């Protein structure tokens, strides 16, 4: 028994060191990529792209299921982005609330006989509407089929060569499209995907579809998620992007070459990690064709999204994410350490397997092994305390590195906000992290009870800065599986 415990302890220790080294390496790569990107943004004359015909037109595809609360504000923010030519395609995925009516009423939508020949099979499209306002907005009303199906319907209707897949609960920064499409203009032949930087919207002040004051959220749960987002989108993704190993583009902001999405058959309906699935299939598609390609991350293309503010919703979200990851890990097992899949096969996907999929299992084992060792007298309390402190400090140090890199964006410089951010770094490891591990363990072993999309209480993007009105009407957008 003691030998088994020792073996597990050493395995956990090795895993811990490997995780920290991996995060440190990513932070270094990210720092380099962010510096280069910053220089480009300041001196690369990115704005010249606006006056040039080199900027390819983009279709923004927005699936909406029971998004009545925030859809108008969100679409308004999208309509105000600065870009020479774009259209917005909103797909009402059989909403049970008045999403459709609100869109029709607010944007003066007219039913139009828009003929299109679907490149991807979807649930029945009932009607296509077009707006009378100057910005091109198309509304597709279709039978419910889930997020992926709605996006596929939007891609079918999209007219432009690049499609931006996003959500209805996001606000897009005005220059997000320019900052992301400049990667396409930079290398038209190779760029098939561009991902954006997702930040929590909770707590920010929103006026007329714009963020007028980016603030640290008021709730601790939202604050801790903000730290997670910064670690992922600022501390890791620029690094992965710099070695063309971006495993997925975020569902809240992912621009794809439309033809690439059509070629791989669109998004997989019912997949809980449809964004990862799509990105990986595109990677595999281009590897098989042996065509040079790249999927990149644009840190300054910022999109703001509502993050869960209650534990229940957060638990469902995390379980869903991990189940999506599990399925993707199984579906793309052939990519693991496959040199024919290039950097994604040798770096990106193995890292996803070891440091994302296995992380909760190993961490959970680590938590188990300590009391068991105590029970069998196989652990020196002093040594255990030291290891615990090292784990705690290493986690805090990695988060601090990400916050350093985030300084490039210049958010949260008020003294109180800075102190709150610093406290997050230390508070994170005192409960939420362990709880997330448990949720992910449940995702692996939880059976059918974890196979739901989960609910999301929408407060509407315009209301997120304020405390919820009394009472917040909970809307239950349970995305059904098809």
């Amino acid at each position, binding site marked *: 028994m003691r030998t088994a415990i020792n073996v597990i302890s050493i395995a956990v220790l090795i895993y811990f060191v490997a995780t920290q080294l991996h995060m440190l390496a990513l932070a270094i790569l990210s720092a380099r990529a962010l510096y280069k990107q910053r*220089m480009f943004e*300041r*001196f*690369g*004359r990115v704005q*010249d792209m606006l006056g*040039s*015909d*080199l900027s390819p037109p983009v279709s923004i595809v927005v699936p909406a299921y029971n998004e009545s609360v925030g859809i108008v504000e969100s679409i308004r923010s999208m309509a105000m982005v600065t870009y020479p030519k774009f259209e917005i395609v909103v797909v009402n995925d059989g909403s049970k609330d008045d999403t459709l009516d609100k869109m029709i009423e607010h944007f003066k939508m*007219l*039913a*139009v*006989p*828009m*003929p299109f*020949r679907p490149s991807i099979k979807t649930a029945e*499209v*009932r*009607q*296509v509407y*077009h707006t*009378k306002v100057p910005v091109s907005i198309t509304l597709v009303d279709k039978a419910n089929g889930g997020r992926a199906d709605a996006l596929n319907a939007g891609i079918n209707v999209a*007219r432009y060569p690049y499609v931006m897949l996003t959500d209805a609960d996001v606000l897009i920064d005005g220059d997000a499209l320019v900052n992301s499409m*400049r990667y396409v*203009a*930079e*290398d*038209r032949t190779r760029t098939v995907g561009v991902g954006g930087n997702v930040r929590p919207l909770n707590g920010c002040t929103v006026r007329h579809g714009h963020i007028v004051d980016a603030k640290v959220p008021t709730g601790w749960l939202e604050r801790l998620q903000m730290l997670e987002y910064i670690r992922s989108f600022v501390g890791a993704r620029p690094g992965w992007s710099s070695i063309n190993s971006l495993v997925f583009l975020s569902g809240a902001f992912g621009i794809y070459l439309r033809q690439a999405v059509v070629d791989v058959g669109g998004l997989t309906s019912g997949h809980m990690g449809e964004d990862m699935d799509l990105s990986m299939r595109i990677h595999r598609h281009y590897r098989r064709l042996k065509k040079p390609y790249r999927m990149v991350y644009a840190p300054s293309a910022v999109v703001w999204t509502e993050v869960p503010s209650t534990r229940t919703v957060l638990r469902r979200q995390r379980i869903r994410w991990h189940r999506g990851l599990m399925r993707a890990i199984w579906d793309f097992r052939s990519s693991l350490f496959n040199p024919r899949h290039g950097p994604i096969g040798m770096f990106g996907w193995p890292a996803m397997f070891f440091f994302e999929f296995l992380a909760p299992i190993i961490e959970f084992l680590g938590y188990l092994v300590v009391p068991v060792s105590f029970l069998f007298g196989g652990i*020196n309390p002093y*040594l255990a305390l*030291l*290891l615990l*402190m*090292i784990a705690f*400090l*290493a986690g*805090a*140090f990695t988060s*601090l*590195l990400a*916050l*350093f890199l985030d*300084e490039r964006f*210049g958010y*949260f*410089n*008020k*003294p109180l906000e*800075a*102190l709150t*951010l*610093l406290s997050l*770094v230390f508070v994170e490891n005192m409960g939420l992290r362990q709880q997330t591990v448990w949720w992910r363990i449940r995702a692996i072993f939880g059976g059918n009870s974890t196979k739901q999309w989960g609910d999301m209480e929408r407060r509407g993007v315009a209301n997120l800065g304020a405390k919820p009105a009394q009472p917040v009407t909970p809307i239950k957008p349970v995305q059904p599986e098809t």
Partner: protein
Amino acid sequence: MSGTLPWVTVVLAASTVIAALSLLSIKMAHRIILNSRGVRTAHYVAAVAEMIGRRYIPTDTPKGWRTDPVFHDILIDYRRLVEGEDGRFIDRMVEEFGIVDALIPRIRRIFPQTSRLQAVSTLVELADHSAAPFLRSLLDDRNDYVQTHAAHGLARIHDLTAVPLILDLSTRVRPWEAARLTDSLIAFGTDAVPLINEWVADEMASPRPSMEAVTQSARVLGFIGDISAEPLLIRLLSSPNLEWRVAAASALGRVGTDEARTALLTALADNAWEVRARAVRALATLADETVGPAVVALLSDTEWWVRQNAAETLGEIPGGVAHLLEALDSPDKFAADSALNQLAEMRKLPPGRLPVLVRERPHEVAIIIPEPVETRPSS
């Protein structure tokens, strides 16, 4: 291992504390810098406005002004906003303050990259003709951004001798920089067209022409829209290089002569759909009703983009709507679809033509009845 762990803990704890304190300091410094920048901006805006208003340049201006990037930014903003006498007064201010002389030494390679680039980007906005030799020398700099900014600076001061240099440089850089370098030529206007024509002709004749630079040059010729570029663009339109043909097709639409129209009509039969798509869109800018029948034929093109562009062109040229209405009854389903799409987009569907998809909401059909076509009021 038990001997090393305490040290690891101490080092990690110290690093974490140092990192936390540094982060806090940086955030505070950012805040102070931003506040200070705001205060100085307000101060300079008022000061420069007063100087322009009173046509007076004080001799005892603080020395820090001439090297302060915030002051430079304000001068640049004013220079862009005002013209004529006021603009010339700002140029005089720049000269009397000795800003260009202060910036040039900061562009030397011994300075950090950010500082150099900041100086270059300011210099190109404020420099006058006397800085032309220096700006031309920057075209040979190792840094792409410096080169691109120098090209834009030369264009701003209208130094035509730099045109061939910029074009030569665009053959040696990446596509993004080539596009930005050639963008700068647009500011030279029609004066640069003979030089660009000559350069492109030489490049086409060379055994290994630069594909990207020629493509970008054709695009720029289109932007400038000078008639003297037409023979060259027509040559490019019939070249074997696809990118050149695509760029030339777009550019010819902006030149807009009879010869351009004839060449574009020929290009409608090009084997590459990209050329057909661009050529048919370019015909829209000619606004010539005689091209209608040729464009209608493309409503049945095998490529979706070409059909869409043909429909859009018909929506824009005189008499095009009539062609679209005719195409609604075309036996070719694709042509009918394209026409239907375009007419719906233009809200010009005839009453009585029921939308194909409206089945479940008949009450909404009423609102798609086209709005009256706007007619020019008789004078």
